[in-house]
C-alpha cells in the first residue's frame, strides 16, 4: 500500500508547525499525530489541497489506552483515489471529545456513531446515537476494562425499540 511521501509530510509540518507530529514509519506506513484544536482545518487541508487530494475516508476507529491521559486515540485512514496515496492520522481525544469530520466525508457518519458506542468518545457538532447496540445499553464494550462476557444488564435494555 502506497503512503504519503516524506516530502509531502514536510509540507504538512510547514503548514501546521509543531501541532502536527510525524510518528515513526512502521512497515512503510506513515502516520501523523495532530492536535485536537486544529483537526478540522488539518483534515480540510488534506482533502482540498492539490498535493494531497484525500477524497476518501477509508476507516475511522479508536484505540483505548487505559493508563494514559487522554485515554482514547481516534484513528483516521485517509486515501486519495486520484493520487493513490494513503495517510493515517491520529488525534488524541481530550475529555473524550473530538470534532466530527462528517462535513468533509459523509462516510464518517456511521463510523463515528460506532466509535461513540464502543468507546464513549463523543464527536462534537453532530447528533450521536448508538449504531449496533440498543440505545439503552449502558456500557462501552470495546474499552479495555470491559469484560468479554459482558456485564449484567437489565432485560428491558434489550427490548425491541
Amino acid at each position, binding site marked *: 500500500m502506497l503512503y504519503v511521501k516524506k516530502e509531502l509530510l514536510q509540507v504538512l509540518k510547514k503548514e501546521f508547525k509543531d501541532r502536527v507530529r510525524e510518528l515513526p514509519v512502521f512497515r512503510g506506513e506513515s502516520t501523523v499525530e495532530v492536535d485536537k484544536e486544529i483537526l478540522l482545518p488539518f483534515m480540510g487541508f488534506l482533502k482540498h489541497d492539490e498535493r494531497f487530494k484525500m477524497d476518501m475516508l477509508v476507516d475511522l476507529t479508536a484505540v483505548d489506552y487505559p493508563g494514559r491521559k487522554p485515554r482514547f486515540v481516534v484513528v483516521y485512514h485517509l486515501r486519495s483515489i486520484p493520487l493513490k496515496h494513503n495517510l493515517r492520522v491520529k488525534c488524541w481525544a481530550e475529555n473524550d471529545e473530538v470534532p466530527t469530520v462528517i462535513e468533509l466525508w459523509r462516510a464518517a457518519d456511521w463510523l463515528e456513531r460506532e466509535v461513540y458506542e464502543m468507546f464513549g468518545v463523543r464527536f462534537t457538532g453532530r447528533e450521536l446515537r448508538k449504531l449496533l*447496540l440498543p440505545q439503552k445499553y449502558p*456500557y462501552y*464494550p470495546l474499552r479495555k476494562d*470491559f469484560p*468479554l*462476557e*459482558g456485564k449484567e444488564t437489565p432485560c428491558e435494555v*434489550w*427490548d*425491541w425499540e
Partner: protein
Amino acid sequence: MGVREGVFLTKLEELINWGRKGSLWPLAFATACCGIEMMAAAASRYDFDRFGVIFRNTPRQCDLLIMCGTISRKMAPIIKRLWEQMPDPKWAIAIGSCAISGNIFQTYSTLRGLDCIVPVDVYVPGCAPKPEAFYEALILLKKKIKRDRPIIVGGEEECST
C-alpha cells in the same frame, strides 16, 4: 394404516400426525452463516421441497422454526415474538453451534443458544452443518411428530410441543 378396496382404515391420531409431518412449513428466516446453508438446502441440488418443506415468509403461515445462526441479545425478543406469532402446533430446530450454545461468540452481545427463549425439538450440531444434516433434522422431527398424541380423551387438543 391400511387400504382395502378403496377403504382407508386408520386412527384419527395417525391421520393427523401423517398430515402434519408431511407438510412442515418453516419460516424463511436466518440470522447468520447457517442461513446460507439453509438456502443451499432449499435450492437446486438438495431440494427441500420433496420433503413437503416450503418456506413461508410470514410466521403466521408456519409451523416450524428453523433457527439458523447466532442469536444476539438484541435479536432475542424478536425471535421470541416470531415464535409466539406462529400458530400451534409448532416445532423448532436449532441449526448449528451458535443456535445451540453460542459457539465461539461467548461475548457480551450473544445469547447462549436458542433454548434460552424457545423450546427446541431437534439440535443439529456443526459449524455450519451440511445440507445433509438438515435432512437428518427433518427426519428426526418427523419421527417425533409421528409419536405425538394430538387427541386426548375428552376431545381437547393439546399443544404437541
